[in-house]
């Protein structure tokens, strides 16, 4: 049943990702997308503010809470002229809340336990970071996963890294996406789920604006959405958003970073839930999409 039946002003009500239902982790079911906030930041970051990213991403996501507003019908991707039937979204998207503040070890332990439990259930964690150093903790909690990094700093040559600059074995984001998606298919081990780290730095710097570690020459939104749509069609244990600082000095009112991330993340969510948009020239299969 719908989350609520009366329209609310956009910023009113209880804040959850896309106005999704709140759940306890023990109630998450296989095939769910479970949102988890990490309101923590690395004290070595050049600016303070990444700990505010989880809240900023949730606030922006409310704009896309179609399924929770009875005044709207279904969304249509205006570029593809394709209907996106989100009727089942509220059944499978849930918000678990944030990892509680505490001692550093306790935070890492809680994150490890949560990521591991969601993976064991067969659900996919949507982790709203926070500092990217916490992604190492998630990666450790998901030892069976193959890791795909969009942006950020490459950590392991075995990972599939979509980079904005030439960097070892990393794939450059500007080159032919179709070819790279073929590379992804070759690299992919279908017996293992994915862990996707999605860092704001994958975007063109002039678009991102709120990135503490901007990289010149990044992707446009369409390219990143195409990647996330393709990745969302694979079995995934977690996707983690990092690199957003909604409070960059003097830039607190500029919301372009969170808007970019949430818009692109929706491509992953829709694909994961089977509402995916087919992009021309995107040689992905839908075999792994749960129905």
């Amino acid at each position, binding site marked *: 049943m719908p989350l609520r039946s009366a*329209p*609310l*002003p*956009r*910023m*009113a009500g209880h804040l959850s990702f896309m106005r999704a239902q709140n759940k306890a982790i023990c109630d998450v079911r296989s095939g769910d997308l479970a949102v988890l906030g990490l309101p923590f930041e690395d004290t070595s970051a050049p600016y303070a503010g990444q700990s505010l990213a989880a809240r900023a991403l949730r606030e922006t996501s409310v*704009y*896309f809470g*179609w399924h929770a*507003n009875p*005044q*709207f*019908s*279904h*969304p*249509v*991707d*205006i*570029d593809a002229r394709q*209907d*996106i039937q989100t009727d089942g979204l509220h059944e499978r998207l849930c918000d678990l809340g944030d990892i509680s503040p505490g001692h550093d070890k306790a935070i890492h332990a809680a994150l490890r336990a949560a990521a591991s439990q969601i993976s064991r259930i067969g659900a996919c964690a949507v982790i709203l970071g926070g500092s990217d150093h916490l992604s190492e903790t998630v990666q450790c909690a998901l030892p069976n996963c193959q890791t795909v990094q969009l942006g950020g700093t490459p950590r392991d040559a075995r990972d599939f890294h979509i980079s904005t600059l030439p960097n070892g074995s990393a794939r450059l984001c500007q080159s032919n996406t179709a070819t790279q998606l073929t590379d992804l298919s070759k690299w992919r081990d279908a017996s293992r789920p994915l862990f996707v780290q999605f860092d704001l730095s994958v975007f*063109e710097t*002039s*678009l*991102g*604006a709120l990135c503490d570690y901007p990289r010149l020459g990044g992707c*446009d*939104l*369409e390219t990143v959405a195409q990647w996330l749509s393709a990745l969302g069609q694979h079995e995934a244990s977690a996707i983690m958003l990092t690199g957003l600082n909604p409070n960059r000095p*003097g*830039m607190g*009112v*500029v*919301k*372009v970073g969170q*808007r*970019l991330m949430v*818009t692109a993340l*929706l491509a992953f969510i829709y694909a994961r839930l089977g509402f995916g948009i087919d992009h021309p020239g995107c040689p992905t299969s839908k075999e792994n999409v749960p129905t």
Partner: protein
Amino acid sequence: MTATITTFHPPLSQPGFRLFDGPLCDVADVSAGQIGVVGMPSDWTHSSRLGTRFGPEALRKATTLMQSMRPQGVSFDPDTRRRSAPADSWLVDCGDAEVTAQDVDATTQAIAAMTEGLTIAGAIPLALGGDHYNSFPACLGYSRGLVKRAPDKRFGYIQIDGHLDFSDRLGAWGSHNHATNARRISELPNIDVSNMVWVGIAGWVDGGDLALIEKQGGRIFSASDVHNMGAAEVMRQALAHAMQGCDELYLSIDIDAMDAGYLPGTGSIVHSGITPRQYYDMLDGLSEAPLGGLDIVEVSPPLDPSERTEFLAAEMLFRILRRFRTRPVTEQ
């Protein structure tokens, strides 16, 4: 002996800024063919990020500053590749409409009264938002004025925007807010949805609104259409569609169609990929259109610490008003 005391009277300028540093003028004194500026400093019909109530002031300041930096005499325009000189008496600034916060009807009628008066006089109302809701009262007044000036005339409508704004209602804001302005305009007596065109729509739109527009013959060009077809071609087709059986064009410029990476100072940002150059090319495509009225909305200076948003928006006005603000010079 007492020295003679003389009083020095320096030339005084009018306080504050006017659009393009034009003269202040009452609506009743505007001449036919002039651009009549109406400020609409209202943003309480926006549902999320406020600040557009400072838009009219920012546009007046930015256009004045940019005008002061342009050639004051005959010059060569690299965009048109023609020589031109500034026109005289082409624009007057009628000040701001009276905005009554919390009273949508009073604000609507105050704005509409000004644009109606300008239209009846044969002037072209240029309304400065404000959030996009204010486009409806501006167009309402234009529509009323057109009925009185030329009862048989109809107008076409082009909305450059990242969003359709065609909802019937929006949450607690009801039927009159920044998501319903185009719907309310479509209900005016001298326009038909089949003469309404949207350009620059990005991302996800409401399926019901989209179906209704297309069922009634409206035309939508997405941001991808602008990229794929080219800004000039999109505008050529948009103008042709909007003007079928119509005499005049009402143009609504929502600056948020431009990608937020360039222009973050607006209430509802989109990542359309539309660049300033593409936006200007679209407006250049309308430079000879039979403009009856226009508005520019959603300039929110507090949301852009870099202040570039109001200058990008000011350049939009320089583009769309080129044929009014300049006169061609043929002599060498």
